[in-house]
């Protein structure tokens, strides 16, 4: 299991989701990915994408317009 980071700041929906999707496709089940975004919609979209595709949201944080989402890659 490894930890990875993805910078998706300054991109608007659905680019943060697409960037997350493309990064997750390179990772292994159990890997942790931290995604940083500035589009507040990512707070709903990335968790929705994870639910649909079998990945787990560990936590989400929003501070001063910056959204940080940690997810665990599913099988």
């Amino acid at each position, binding site marked *: 299991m490894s930890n990875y980071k993805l910078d998706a700041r300054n991109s608007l929906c659905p680019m943060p989701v697409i960037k997350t999707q493309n990064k997750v496709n390179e990772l292994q089940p159990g890997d942790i990915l931290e995604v940083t975004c500035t589009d507040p*919609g990512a707070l709903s*979209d990335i968790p929705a994408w994870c639910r649909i595709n079998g990945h787990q949201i560990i936590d989400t944080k929003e501070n001063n317009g910056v959204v940080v989402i940690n997810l665990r890659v599913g099988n």
Partner: protein
Amino acid sequence: MSTPRKAVALISGGLDSLLAAKLMLEQGIHVEGINFYTGFCVEGHTHAIRKKDSKKPKRNNALWSAEQLGIKLHILDIIDEYKDVVINPKHGYGANMNPCLDCKIFMVGKAKQWMQEKGFDFIITGEVIGQRPMSQRKDLLPVVVRESGADDLLLRPLCAQNLAPTLPEREGWVDREKLLAFHGRNRKPQMALAKTFGFEDYASPAGGCCFLTDKNYSNKLIDLWQARNKKEYELDDIMLLKVGRHIRPAPHYKLIVSREDGENKFLNGYRKQFSTIEIKSHNGPLTLVDGELCDEDIKQAARIAARFSQGREADSVTVKFTRLNGEETMLNVPPMSASEIKQEWYV
């Protein structure tokens, strides 16, 4: 027990594609969705840039549809490939800069490619005969089939009974009798069907999913191409057309003036790509400058930006102009009056 046949559904986030996919799931077909991001898509998030719209639900409707259906959704970035569709549409544009027929042909063609790569059996769309003037006319539906290369692997469940049977129907993968015969612009049948499936809060039916169908947006795109003297764009170009007031006081430069705080924040992300104008003596918008400005232009641009600040009635407003190389110039300028800003400057 045999393995279910697999269909890839084009999921736009609207009602029709939601219903088409649901009809296939009801027949035991394994369905996965694909959604294409062209850069011109109208999404809640684009509107959410503007603070006044911040109470609108910030959701991606394609993801929402997939979640309602319980299917996987694959969002494909086709920004670069799609440029040729917008710039050189073989079948021309619709009422504005919308190349709807070429767009549909392109997307179905991409879906076929995806289907083959992933080992799926056929493609479904939510098209309905006669619902839209360009891409869903009865005489043009076969054009999509032919030019996309999808041939009889393209099934349109909502209007299939009005069309010749496709391979999935002829082979008995799906029961044609359970497909529908919707046609025309009347949305009531779709709404009634949505109700039977328990779908509520779906995105506004039909249309409005692409900025290229919008007259104001299309005018800005045409202006961009005219100013550059060539038809080309990058993603940032078409994103910025969605934001702010666009004012072209002279052929060689354009101002993008934010309208409120949300747009200020968004435009702030482009400081490294554009010269900027900030209002220092009053609250006011951030303005991006697209083009090279001489000293007289800077003064004119500063006066225009000042017009949209809270100092619009003041005798003088202090403005900071920052060039792309970081060089700063402070100016004190009288804001333009409303009548001085010519109507034809607004793009």
